[in-house]
């Protein structure tokens, strides 16, 4: 997959488009120091679609503003294509930004908005006209050059903001929750559109969002942030399949976080045996007597009425809720260890549900899908 290739270029010997080293940002409010970013290391590769994902207040926007130059780091270094840019004002950084509010110039036409950056740089008139025309074509706004921003729909304003930034051919484009103000349908359409535009122009995108679906859909790599730190950095698949921390497991998708005491070791895995016939295998180094926390994604679990054979994970439980959701059915199962487990079962056949509320069931999954997690 291309994701792994791009992931390698970012950490490899090639010069990173954007690199942050031990970046710390502390704000001062009423004499009190408020840490926003507590030490972030990042290397974003050329042409990569990179997302900073996290809840509000996690430091993702501050991190991006330090890349753009609107905020200066309290400690640490910011490199753009190998040169240290700390202290360089935003108008001298070869980077452009798409703001959450779009921040279009209300007194200028679409054309004037998009041409602003090129005119500031003193690009010749005919070249400005040509490049603005090309860019408006890419974002599908040809014919609306003379409109004022307020005469456009939300989605169109969004595309003007994108064109205004991209027309300058920046080394990297920073996007601060650019789809936040759009309704769901438009947002999904724009996700596909953004990815297409990014492929077309080949510019590094740094995308800030709190929406995990957006990040998973579009990114080559994602940095999940929480409380001023990066919790996990990896491809969408890595982050979804192998969440490194409890926070990541809970923030990305639905996840079952379970814990148990290891009763014995078996090859490269720890085995938990909560009851007769029950067995949970967690790959890792935990030894007998340790309490381990691990996650299993709901769609990896199978629900059946008989005890499963083989060496897989097996757990007994009682169905507390069954919700039919079209493509899959959602089961909530109270296990023998008193934890509630969510299971998604694909509705492959149109036959009845495998279990009903109150039924006694067995849950089973491949040991490869249980992941021990950190704090």
């Amino acid at each position, binding site marked *: 997959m291309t994701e792994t290739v791009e992931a390698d270029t970012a950490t490899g010997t090639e010069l990173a488009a954007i690199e942050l080293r031990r970046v710390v940002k502390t704000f001062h409010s009423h004499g009190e120091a408020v840490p926003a970013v507590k030490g972030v290391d990042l290397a974003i590769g050329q042409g990569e679609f990179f997302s900073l994902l996290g809840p509000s207040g996690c430091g993702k926007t501050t991190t991006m503003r330090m890349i753009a130059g609107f905020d200066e780091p309290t400690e640490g270094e910011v490199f753009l294509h190998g040169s240290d840019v700390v202290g360089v004002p935003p*108008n001298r950084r070869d980077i452009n930004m798409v703001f*959450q509010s779009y921040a*279009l*110039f209300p007194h200028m036409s679409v054309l004037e908005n998009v041409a*602003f950056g090129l005119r*500031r740089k003193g690009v010749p008139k005919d070249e400005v006209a040509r490049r603005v025309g090309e860019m408006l074509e890419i974002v599908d706004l040809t014919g609306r050059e003379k409109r004022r921003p307020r005469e456009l729909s939300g989605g169109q304003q969004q595309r003007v903001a994108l064109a*205004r930034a991209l027309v*300058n051919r920046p080394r990297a484009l920073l996007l601060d929750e650019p789809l936040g103000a759009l309704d769901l349908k438009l947002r999904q359409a724009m996700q596909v559109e953004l990815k297409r535009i990014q492929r077309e122009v080949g510019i590094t995108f740094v995308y800030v969002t709190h929406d995990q679906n957006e990040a998973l859909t579009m990114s080559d790599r994602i940095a999940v942030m929480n409380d001023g730190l990066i919790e996990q950095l990896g491809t969408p698949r890595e982050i979804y399949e192998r969440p490194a921390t409890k926070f990541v497991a809970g923030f990305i998708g639905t996840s079952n976080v379970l814990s148990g005491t290891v009763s014995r070791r078996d090859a490269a895995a720890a085995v938990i045996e909560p009851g007769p016939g029950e067995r949970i295998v967690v790959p890792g180094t935990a030894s007998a007597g340790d309490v381990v926390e691990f996650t299993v994604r709901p769609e990896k679990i199978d629900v059946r009425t008989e005890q499963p054979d083989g060496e897989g994970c097996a757990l007994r439980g009682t169905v507390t809720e069954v919700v039919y959701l079209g493509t899959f059915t959602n089961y909530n199962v109270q296990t023998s260890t008193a934890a509630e487990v969510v299971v998604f079962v694909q509705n492959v056949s149109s036959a009845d549900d495998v279990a009903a509320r109150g039924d006694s069931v067995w849950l089973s999954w491949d040991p490869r899908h249980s992941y021990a997690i950190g704090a």
Partner: protein
Amino acid sequence: MKATIVDLKPAVRRPRVRWGDRLLYLYTWAIIVWLCLPIAVMIAFGFNDTTGRLNLTWQGFTLKWYGQLFSVPDLTTALVNSLTIAVVATLGSAVLGTLIGLALGKYRFRGQGALNIVQFAAISAPETVMGASLLSFFVQLGVGRGYWTILIAHIMFSLSFVAITVRSRVLTLDPSIDEAARDLGAGGWAVFRLVTLPMIFPAVLAGALLAFALSIDDFIITSFNSGSTLTFPLWIWGAQRNGLPPQVNVMGTLIFVGGILLAAGNAVVARRRR
């Protein structure tokens, strides 16, 4: 000062006009007439064919006062003083007030609260107090009263009006618009000239018009600090014991028409920009 314009759309699907609506309608017109009557009288007596020193009874229609507009030398000097002071004071308070309004709306700084309070204090302080304290200030400094002290006084009291209108406009702006301009390569001055100023211009204009209106007819503060210089209102005050010549009405009419034109122009500009 302010007339409430009431929207009186005919009530749809309600054939009988209610008494409340009728009363409101009458009341609105009563206020409009009440506000306009003195102005109408002033305009009318500019056309009065009066022969005596007093211009108080209607004698007949004439246009001769418009022809002899500048035949009272002192009055002409006073009008020129008033107009030049008003123009310079407007420009001065527009520039300084805009800068103060921008600072108050955009930044957080030490002394901001105090500056805000001082502004409102300057607006609400009684004019006699302000005039008297300015006079003692100038006397203390040993500055001779005249044209320049009037100008300084006018800039001082109209500054706050510009600053407050600009500040409230700045507060409604999205701060990321300025950031977007910087992000696109504009330096500090270019951001102000190309982005900030065009966006706050309606407020600057409104504040400046207010400053002009305050300056051109100020009497109290001016009289404290004028020395021997006469402005239009001061001349009228001095002359009214002996009867005012109809030229005063004509000049008043022209200032009024000028004001109406400026206000209409402002409304057109504001509508186009919005």
